């Protein structure tokens, strides 16, 4: 019977790319591990997009008063040959609801079968690499504040996450609160292109908001991680 021997170190010791070395353990022999998603980010496959900036939120279609599938506040189009795992999406709205029966909503949804051919009238967003020096760029197209319809109109087979708020009051104008949604799944889905991910917010009273979205992207070269049956 054989023990598995590791190198016990409190401090990390580096080797070259593709070098062979002892697995790292702490001085008690506990294996030091990292998640595969974190390794993907370190390899330059993580991306981040910011919608709204500093103190200026955005509004998408429907003037912020309704959720309009074809004019979302954010849409990430995943091309054929690429797959993404959404790892964190945070939406922060400026809650306007101050009338009885106001309903305000935030929804994150997925179209499983279509990439966009047009971003409509919108703001084209830049997806920054989560390893901030890495030159790898995203193959996804990202649009925010869509006010004229994207094409094709998304079909939301999957709603990933949602926030819902309902106001009950007698005197208008006296509410105050947060309206935000954090989607940071332990086990994210793998959204295989052609596909898209939408973030929408709005409600009875027009609502604007900010979005931070992050995903790990697997281009064609990494197809064996997710492709095939």
């Amino acid at each position, binding site marked *: *019977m054989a*023990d*598995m*021997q*590791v*190198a016990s170190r409190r401090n990390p*010791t*580096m*080797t*070259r*790319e*593709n*070098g*062979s*070395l*002892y*697995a*790292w353990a702490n001085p008690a022999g506990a*294996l030091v*591990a*990292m*998640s*595969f998603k974190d*390794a993907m980010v*370190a*390899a330059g496959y993580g991306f981040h997009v910011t919608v709204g900036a500093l103190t200026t939120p955005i509004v998408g279609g429907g003037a912020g008063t309704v*959720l309009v*599938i074809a004019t979302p506040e954010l849409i990430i189009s995943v091309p054929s040959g690429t797959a993404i795992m959404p790892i964190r999406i945070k939406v922060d709205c400026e809650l306007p609801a101050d009338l009885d029966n106001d*309903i305000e909503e935030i929804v994150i949804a997925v179209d*499983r*079968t279509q990439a966009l051919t047009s971003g409509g009238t919108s703001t084209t967003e830049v997806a920054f690499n989560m390893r901030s020096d890495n030159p790898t760029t995203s193959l996804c197209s990202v649009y925010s504040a869509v006010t004229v319809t994207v094409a094709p109109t998304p079909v*939301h*087979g*999957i*709603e*990933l*996450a*949602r*926030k*819902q*708020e*309902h*106001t*009950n*009051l*007698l*005197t208008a104008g006296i509410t105050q609160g947060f309206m935000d949604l954090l989607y940071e799944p*332990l*086990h994210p*889905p*793998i959204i*295989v292109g052609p*596909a898209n991910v939408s973030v929408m917010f709005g409600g009875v009273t027009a609502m604007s908001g900010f979005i931070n979205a992050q995903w790990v992207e697997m281009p064609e*070269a*990494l197809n*064996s*991680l*997710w492709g*095939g*049956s």
Partner: protein
Amino acid sequence: MADDFFVKAHRNLSLTGEGNIQSLFANRAGAVVQVNLIDQLIAAGYGYHVTIGALTTPIQGGGAGTILDTLQPEFSLAVPSGSAIYLIRGSVQAELPADQDGDVQEILFAADRLAASNASSATGTVEVAFNMRTDNPRSSLCTVVSANTVNITAPTHGLEIARKQEVTNIVTSGITQGVLELLYEPLSPLLLVGPASFYALWGGTQAMSAFGQFQWVEMPEALNALWGGS
């Protein structure tokens, strides 16, 4: 006698063919890169997602939304004999109606360990479970039904898994505001072996409708060795 545990250190990914032997992946400090079994099962096409309610239209189950009716659940997931599931994420968002003193509103997730629900299109709305690896053709063996308004066979809730409870205390009626939601995303999920069922119920003193999103990893008979036997 001891075996040295060497790993291949690299920052960039190095892929090989299906079934090939290769060195363990570590970063350049020797920290082993690991993938969670549930994440790998999702990549292999064993993860499923179902959405209850859509866009701006929530649903109500039995009891007109005013009580938790175990015979008419808002959501039922029947696991057939021969299959097992890890429920990895369940989330419900209600449109909170409570605005009277003493109103109690509730969301409950529960499981029947012994019986697969007989909920069907005769009792509610049959839902489509989409694969969490969106291109994968594998389909779920579970039966998913929402908004049951006709009685199903009485389940036995041996396990109550998660709950949200809200009591309204006010002097003047009609002035509440808030969020009533439940997110169950366990670090160590329950292993529910068929025949068995998972249920979500919501309601309260004031009729309440809601949306839900549920995800599970499903292990059919072919993966029995992962969970079967004693």
